């Protein structure tokens, strides 16, 4: 087996594994009971699946310019996926859309009590004097 054949086999294994992670996320989206567990499964193709497929692609296309593009893709995906997941999870928790009966422990609940009594609405327009 030539070196090219070995590299192609490694790339194929990487890409099939990445696609399997995507399939696992699809199954989990259908089967998991609530939003937080679906988010847990949804991160698999977003991070590990994409990185595995990028590795396979970098083995197949081994030029400097294209590998730089792939590093950029990996960096942007790693930087943006946690932020999006954090915003979605925060919105779900604050809106009461998580199933608390499925949680083993909820460390955020005592902290949330501190924010329950909000100060009076500070509307930016309230301080503006009406035109005479």
């Amino acid at each position, binding site marked *: 087996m030539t070196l090219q054949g070995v590299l192609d086999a490694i790339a194929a294994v990487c890409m099939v594994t990445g696609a399997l992670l995507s399939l696992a996320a*699809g199954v989990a*989206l259908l089967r998991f009971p609530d939003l937080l567990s679906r988010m847990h499964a949804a991160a698999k193709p977003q991070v590990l699946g*994409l990185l595995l497929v990028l590795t396979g692609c970098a083995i197949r296309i081994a030029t400097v310019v294209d590998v730089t593009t792939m590093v950029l*893709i990996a960096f942007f995906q790693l930087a943006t*996926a946690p932020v*999006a997941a954090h915003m*979605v999870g925060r919105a779900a928790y604050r809106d009461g859309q998580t199933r608390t009966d499925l949680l083993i422990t909820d460390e955020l609940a005592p902290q949330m009590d501190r924010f329950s009594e909000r100060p009076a609405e500070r509307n930016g327009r309230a301080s503006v004097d009406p035109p005479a």
Partner: protein
Amino acid sequence: MTVAAVAVAALLIAACAMALVRIIRGPTTLDRIVATDVLLAITATAIIAEAAFTRDPTALPVVVVVSLLGITGSVGVARFVTREKP
């Protein structure tokens, strides 16, 4: 390599179908947002896999844009989806 390409395509199509089912059925908007994120990640994966199997890097900048702008939809919707407290 053709076998691997067909296998990857089949797996990704099945994953896309399941994410679409969740987008259609999802009881809340946030479920649909999570499923849309997964669909976007699968799309990026498919574009990269196509580039790898054909050894043609033409479409790779598209994936850069997808990975950069994929955040905007979910963050925007998650910011404004919460109900107003009475």
